[in-house]
C-alpha cells in the first residue's frame, strides 16, 4: 500500500463505511484541531468516542471521555489517532488487541508511522496516515470548496443543500489521487528527511 498518495476511492470507501470512530487524543479545548474534527464528524452523523486518560470524567459534545480503547466496551469501526508519530505504535498495539479489532486505523495530519501501518495492515486493517478525516470528508463532499480548497472532484449534478448534521454525498467524480502531485511530493520529501 502506497501511503504517499491515496486514491480517492480508498478514502471514500472508508468514510462511507465506518459508523463508529474512537478518537485517541481528543481534546476538550475548543481551539485544538482534534476538537474541530471531533465536532465536525459528530455533526456528520458518526458515532464518536473521545479517548484521553487525562480527561476522564469530562464529556465532549455530550460523549464521556474514556481512558483507553479497551474501556470502550463495544466494537468500533475506526481508530483516529490524534497523537504525534512517536506515540502511534502503542495505540496500534492496543487497537489490535481488541476483539473484534477495528477495521481502520487513521493517523492524523502530520502523523506517520510506517512500521505501525505495516503491522495493522498485516492484521487485515486499512490504514490512512497523515490525513485529517474532517478535511477529507469536506473535500470529497465538496463542502470544503467554500474555503477555496481544491476538492479534486467534479460533478454536473445539483449540489446537495448543506444543512447541519446532513451527510453530503461523497460520491463525486475524482480527479486522481487524494492530494495534488506537488503536495504529495512535499509530504514524501518531508517524511524522508525527518
Amino acid at each position, binding site marked *: 500500500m502506497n501511503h504517499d498518495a491515496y*486514491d*480517492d*476511492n480508498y478514502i471514500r470507501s472508508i468514510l462511507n463505511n465506518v459508523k463508529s470512530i474512537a478518537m485517541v487524543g481528543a481534546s476538550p479545548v*475548543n*481551539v485544538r*484541531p482534534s*476538537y*474541530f474534527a471531533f*465536532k*465536525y464528524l459528530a455533526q456528520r452523523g458518526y458515532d464518536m468516542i473521545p479517548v484521553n486518560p487525562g480527561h476522564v470524567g469530562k464529556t465532549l459534545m455530550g460523549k464521556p471521555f474514556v481512558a483507553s480503547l479497551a474501556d470502550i466496551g463495544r466494537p468500533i469501526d475506526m481508530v483516529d489517532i490524534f497523537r504525534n508519530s512517536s506515540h502511534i505504535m502503542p495505540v496500534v498495539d492496543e487497537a489490535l488487541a481488541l476483539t473484534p479489532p477495528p477495521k481502520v486505523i487513521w493517523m492524523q*495530519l*502530520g502523523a506517520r508511522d510506517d512500521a505501525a501501518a505495516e503491522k495493522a495492515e498485516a492484521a487485515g486493517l486499512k490504514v490512512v496516515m497523515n490525513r*485529517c478525516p474532517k*478535511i477529507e470528508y*469536506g473535500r470529497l463532499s*465538496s*463542502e*470544503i*470548496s*467554500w*474555503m*477555496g*480548497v*481544491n*476538492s*479534486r472532484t*467534479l*460533478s*454536473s*449534478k*445539483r*449540489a*446537495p*443543500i*448543506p*444543512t*447541519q448534521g446532513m451527510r453530503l454525498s461523497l460520491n463525486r467524480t*475524482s*480527479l*486522481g*489521487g487524494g*492530494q*495534488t*502531485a*506537488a*503536495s504529495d*511530493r*512535499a*509530504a514524501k520529501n*518531508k517524511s524522508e528527511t525527518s
Partner: protein
Amino acid sequence: MTDRLPGFATLAVHAGAQPDPTTGARATPIYQTTSFVFNDADHAASLFGLQAFGNIYTRIGNPTNAVLEERVAALEGGTAALAVASGHAAQLVVLQQLLRPGDEIIAARKLYGGSINQFTHAFKAFGWNVAWADPDEISTFERAVTPHTKAIFIESIANPAGSITDIEAIAAVARKAGVPLIVDNTLATPYLIKPIDHGADIVVHSLTKFLGGHGNSLGGIIVDAGTFDWSRDNKYPMLSEPRPEYHGIKIQETFGNFAFAIACRVLGLRDLGPALSPFNAFMILTGIETLPLRMQKHCDNAKAIAEFLAGHPAVSAVNYPGLPGDRYNNLQRKYAPKGAGAVFTFSLKGGYDAGVNLVSNLKLFSHLANVGDTRSLVIHPASTTHSQLDDDAKVRSGAGPDVVRLSIGIEDKEDLIADLEQALDA
C-alpha cells in the same frame, strides 16, 4: 475503478462549479450579497472560530468567489486558492503572511513596473526590504540570501519584455535557503506554464489579464501549492504560532497543506480588506472557461507578428522567446512549449520619438496600460508604465526609450499585421 485525471480544458470549464443547490442554475450564480445567515448560535460560533467550513461575510469569502478559487487552484495544481481584488492585492496579502518589519524579500529585477513600485515604495514603508536579483544570472539570487530573507519573488514570463524565467533554477535557490518561491504567473497562465510543477510554493496572478481575458474586470488570486513546511524553523509565525485573533489556533497544524491559503484568507484578506466583488469573480470565471482556446490563439498570433516585425526595416530588435535564436528560446521550449505568450517588446531604430509616433499611428491596436485583453494593445513603457523608474532601471527591466510593448489579442493576425505595417510606414 481508478480515478481518471481530466484534462486542462475540462478543468477550465468545470472545476469548482456545480449546479446551484436550490435552483439548479448551471452557470455559477453571482451571490451578490455582503453576508450569510447562520443556522444558529453554535453554527455562527463554529464559523467564526474556523471550526466549520462556510460563509460569513463577503470580505472573508463568497460562494461565487469560491468557485473561481477552486478553479484556479485546480488549473495550477495547487491545494487551495484565495481570490482578491487585484493582482497587487494578491502580492500584498501574500507578503503580509511572510514578512515582519526588517525582513527581506529577494525579487527578480524583471518584473511588471507596478510591482517594482509596490516593492520599492509601499512595502518599504512597512519595513519590508527588497533585494533585487537578475533572473538571467541565477548566482545573483544565491548571493542575495541573508538570515532575514523570507521569500523569493519572480515572474514566470516577465512583463514587459516577455522573457522566460528559469523557475527550476531559482526554486533550487529557494529550497536551499529554506524560503518559499513565489511565482507571478500572470503572463503565462497555467495553460502555458504551471510553476508548481517546477518548484513554486505559491503562485499569484493578476486575473485582470489573460485569465479574465476580456479587459473588463480587475482581480487577483493566490494559489497555495501545499509544498512548504511553514513550521520547520518558526520563521513564519503567522502560520506556525498560536494566533491570538483566533483564540490560539495554529494555522498550519489545523489546516495542513492548504494552511497558507487559509492564512491569506483569515489573517490577510479579513484584516487588510481587498475583497473581490462577486460580479468580477463571475466575469473572470466566464473568461477562464475559454482560456485554453484564447491562449493558444494569443500565442499563435503573437508569433506571426513577432516574425513580421523581425523582418521589418524600421525595427532594430524583437524580444520574443518564440523566435528561433532569441536568447530565451531554449527556456521557452522547456517551460512553455505550447507558445511564448502574447506580451513582448520590440525596439525601433528611430528611438523614443519613433515609439511615440508608432503608438499614435496605430488604428486597431489600443493605446492603454493593460495586457491580456481579447483586443490587441500597445504601449510605450518608457513614457508610461515605467516612467517612474530612472533610466538605468528602465533599461534593466527591459523598458528602454526605444522599446514598444505589444499585447497581442485574438483578432485575425492579417489585420494586426496590416495595422502595424501602415503605422510603421507612416
